[in-house]
């Protein structure tokens, strides 16, 4: 009497191998995603922006009464790149969400405020150092 049929054995082997390959595939996606998201183009920028909005790579810098705030340029609704301002508002071109110059939602569809990016001011070198995880 056979412990296991040939067909069942093959199915088991294929199942284990398939699962292992699927696991490797899943891990490869994760690692790739991590590498890309941490690869910020510029993390140190000169601290000399005019009043109002400045769009730099993947961030929006807002200077108001000499006070600086930095936000991600990704719309919190569906991740579109925000690249236009109208007066003191930022408008997402994909679905029309509007944000104020302090990153807060003025009108939807976005519900969350723009993601704030933390930074340090280096007054000695007159630069802004962005935190990389942003």
């Amino acid at each position, binding site marked *: 009497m056979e412990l296991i049929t040939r067909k069942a054995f093959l199915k088991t082997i294929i199942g284990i191998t398939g699962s292992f390959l699927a696991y490797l595939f899943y891990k490869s996606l994760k690692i790739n995603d991590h590498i890309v998201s941490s690869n910020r183009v510029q993390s140190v920028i000169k601290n000399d922006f005019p*009043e109002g909005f400045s*769009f730099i790579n993947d961030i929006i810098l807002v200077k108001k009464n000499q006070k600086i705030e930095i936000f991600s340029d990704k719309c919190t609704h569906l991740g579109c790149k925000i*690249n236009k301002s109208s007066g003191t508002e930022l408008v997402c071109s994909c679905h029309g969400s509007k944000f104020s110059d302090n990153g807060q939602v003025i009108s939807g*569809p976005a519900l969350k405020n723009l993601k704030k990016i933390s930074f340090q001011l280096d007054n000695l070198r007159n630069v802004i150092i962005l935190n990389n995880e942003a």
Partner: protein
Amino acid sequence: MKLDSIKILISRSQFGYLSYASFFICILSGIALAFTFDPMNSYNSISLMILLNKPALFIRSIHYWSAQIFLLTSVFHIIDHLLKRTEKDVKSSSWVGMIMLIPFLLYAMFSGFLLKGDNEATQGMNIIVSVLNSIPLIGNIISGTMFGTTSSLQIIYINHIITSALVVWLLTIEHSKKIIPSAKSLLQVIPLIALLSVILIPSISKNISPETKGPWYLTGIQEIFHWLNYPEITIYILFLILVGIFSVKYLNNKASGRLKLVLLIFLLSYSLVSVFALFFRGESWKLIVPWDDNANVVEFLTASNLKTPEDSLLKRKVPLIQGKIESCMYCHSDVKGLSISHDVAAIGCYSCHLGNPLSLDKITAHRGMTLTPGNLDVAEKTCGTINCHPGILKRVGKSLMTSMSGVIAVNKYTFGESKTPDGYYNIENIGFTPAETHLRGLCAGCHLSNNKLKPAPIDELSRGGGCSACHLNYQPESIADLENLKAGKKSHFVNHPEITLKVTDDHCFGCHSRSGRIATNYEGWHETHLNSKDVTNIDKSKFRLLQDGRVFEKKNDDVHHKAGMMCIDCHNSYEIMGDGTKYSHKENAVKIQCIDCHTDNPSTITKDKMDQESQRILNIRNKTDLNIKYIVSKGTGIPYLNTIYKDGRIITELKSSGKQLISKPVSTLCGKDIQGHNRMDCATCHTAWAPQCIGCHTQYYPEMTGWDNLTNKETIGSWLEKDKEFYSDFPTLGVTFDPKSKNSKVTTFIPGMVLSISKSKNEKSYKRLFAPAFSHTISAKSVPCKTCHNNPVALGYGRGELKYVINNNNGRWIFSQKFSNFSSDNLPEDAWIGFLQNSKNNNSTRTNTRPFNIEEQKKILTIGSCLTCHKENDKKMIAVLRSTPFTKKKLSVKCIVPIW
């Protein structure tokens, strides 16, 4: 027989065959397209097809249209089957396959859209990845497997050409039981695809429009997303729809029928929403109508784009502009004359002049272009785009040279239309009140938002032009090119005018030779009542005829002008283009002060500590030394980029010639330590003269044809201005109060709006307003003391004889006026105040300025009485004046001070 054929052709049952035939053509065209399409450089790859590779463009068009028809006919085929209730006859395994086909079909379509690699595709990629990632647990895996990362099209390309194509084909074969579609269905669909592929060739977006639209079949979802705070719901709805379609096979007839009705209603509703989103949504999600000029509904190329380009074009090598192909380069790569930062090899033509950068047809390529990209109405798409100078554009929009706020505020106050001469206005927003039509008729041309209508070098008649008003310089070669183009001798502009920081005084002259006339004052020209006929044989050293017909006579020019300094040697970018603050009046916007340079104790700054704009300007001027100490304005901290502090000297390098000037510190002889002089502005002693206009009258003629300088159009009704006398005397002095520091200072004034106004026969008014004015006629040597202390014009009394009369040891000042009193306010026509009188309501163009009050007049005239006997350098007198407090006890018994 023929009728039957037609019936079969349009029969509903044909949709499945047509769908498969379209898909088959789509696959074949896709294989052909793969040889020329580069997924790693997709935008340029498609650009090349549009411009040069016409066979590939046609294949792409076939690929696009066969895919669209495949989608449409598939949907109709599904509806057809559901209406016929054929789902009951299908095996369960086949039914599952058919349902599976729907998401793969949608994926194949949408991945094709993403492979365009343009702005819309990038945003589409962001959206789909974001939506899929919101699915719990498996979202990331689905997103990574189907779309990869947002920064690469590699996975999408593989899935588009292999995974989705293979799966859809296999499932279609399984469904249709055919490997190749029938010849009949191919013959039916090929003419339609070919026709559409020729007349409507799909293009790509030019990556500059702030309008983002998805593919036509997803605009409905885009609109739904706009209203949906939780967009991930859409995924579940789509899944439910699939489950719904799947279920119709297994429900009883009644329930199945109801479900089909629901699905049909949903499809119709979605179609309506899609049409709305496609045609009625515009830039920044605003509502538009499709026939609006600015509507950019769907962009297709026409059949003319399939014309084979000339061989010479195929061989031509052109530079990539910011990594992208720009068709303008095929004809205009030889354009020269621009500086490095604006060179065509760096930024191309399209980023400034717009038009169509994906066409080699002259008419199409030039359609929508602007010849005057500096104009502020287009600058948001040209100079002010986010990659160029967006911050500056916003500042310029608020600056006084754009808003004309002070001019409007004072004019409205003069006409009695506002309670104060302050407040912020913008010329673009004025209406048609008497004051506003007066502005439209006489003043409203001098603002930066006035559009330059055609390319032309700057001259004395130039007005407006936005960025070009200051930064465009025509070289002799570019003027020659322009003339040749006008004369039809040349078809091509090669020598582009320079876009530069070399803003010459000529750029400023047109507007600033009017009103306060600081441009003409600075050069030492004073306006006369002569006309061009009076100076036919003009002596150019004594008279100057301007292009507008006004004749000016020679006076002393400003000491800085004598030294070769231009306007921009003093005035910096934050003054001229604004600093982002809305100022009411010019003196609020000015940052510089005389003492910034004329001191032995300057404030300095090095380049690395400066703001970005100043650093950029220094870079353009090749100033790289980080140890150089630049002079910085004490009041505002803004650096002078041409003035340095070296070896204890302040050296200004002229921006035009590079000549170096050494600034002298304030003289020890400067009388600031004399009582009362410590609050005097430098200009009060160093102004040589200022233009003064007496007795101006302006009248409205309702029947006369006029010109609206704001709209540049003719109007019915016109304001005409008549003036009496022009003087080039020492200005009147007055007091300016600074609310911030609570200090006041004595400064120079000229008649600002001394105006009688006739709005109509019965409606007349009169205003006598003096304006603070920095004349720009500075002399190195200060004026004699008597110029202020014994001068009726300086004191505000107007012209005449101011005499100190002594009788019986009593001194008394007497004033005999030159001009008779004006009936409206009983003051001499050229006066600001009455002799030894207080002004009733300050009569000034500012709320914080005023003429001297009686006490101040008495103090000034008391010293004036001293000067009637003593020479101004009399040491005894100066010693007494410098002693504090100044009392009569310190005077000699011979001194006779005035009695009042």
